[in-house]
């Protein structure tokens, strides 16, 4: 699934580890989501969207 995670993270000068700690997932997971190798679960997607004060569909792009 496409997403704007890397851009949003970069805007805040956060490392992947910083974001991982805030969302309570591993850095590996953030990396895999950014590279679009892995789609997060709904709770993780909600936590990410809430962290950036955005809606889920503004962070993650449904390609279907």
């Amino acid at each position, binding site marked *: 699934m496409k997403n704007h995670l890397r851009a949003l993270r970069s805007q805040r000068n956060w490392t992947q580890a910083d974001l991982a*700690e805030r969302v309570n*997932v*591993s*850095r*590996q997971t953030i*990396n895999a989501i950014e590279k679009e*190798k*892995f789609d997060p679960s709904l709770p*993780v997607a909600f936590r990410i969207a809430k962290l950036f004060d955005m809606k889920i569909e503004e962070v993650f792009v449904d390609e279907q």
Partner: protein
Amino acid sequence: MQAHDGTRTPDAMANVAPLAIWTLAWLATLALANFGPKFLWDYQPVAGWVAVAANLVVGLVWIVAHARYLRGLDDLQRKIMLEAMAIGLGVGVVGGFAYAAASNVHLIAFDASIAIFSALTAVVYLVAIAAGNLRYR
């Protein structure tokens, strides 16, 4: 604090030590149940049953520790573990039954031992975890 390689959350890190301790405890009680009769209590049945019961009890705690470890993992790590378990179990079952079939019709000279397939399953499981981590690195 994340793991040095960034693969585990603090919750998962906290569950690593208990899992390692209970794994070693299970191995120790398994060794005791296997070698105790010969080297420690001269095949006395009561001592043997106590050792087997201790192995079972510690084994149950080990299973609980493993389940707790899996629950502490994040989504991606849990997916990697699930895939690794599927591959490990699959190889163990398929390999085990194929070996048993070959043994039953006397294609293989020596009998199959369940320990070999348990070890095979464990090794394949560990390799599959490493491969999964590389895949999502």
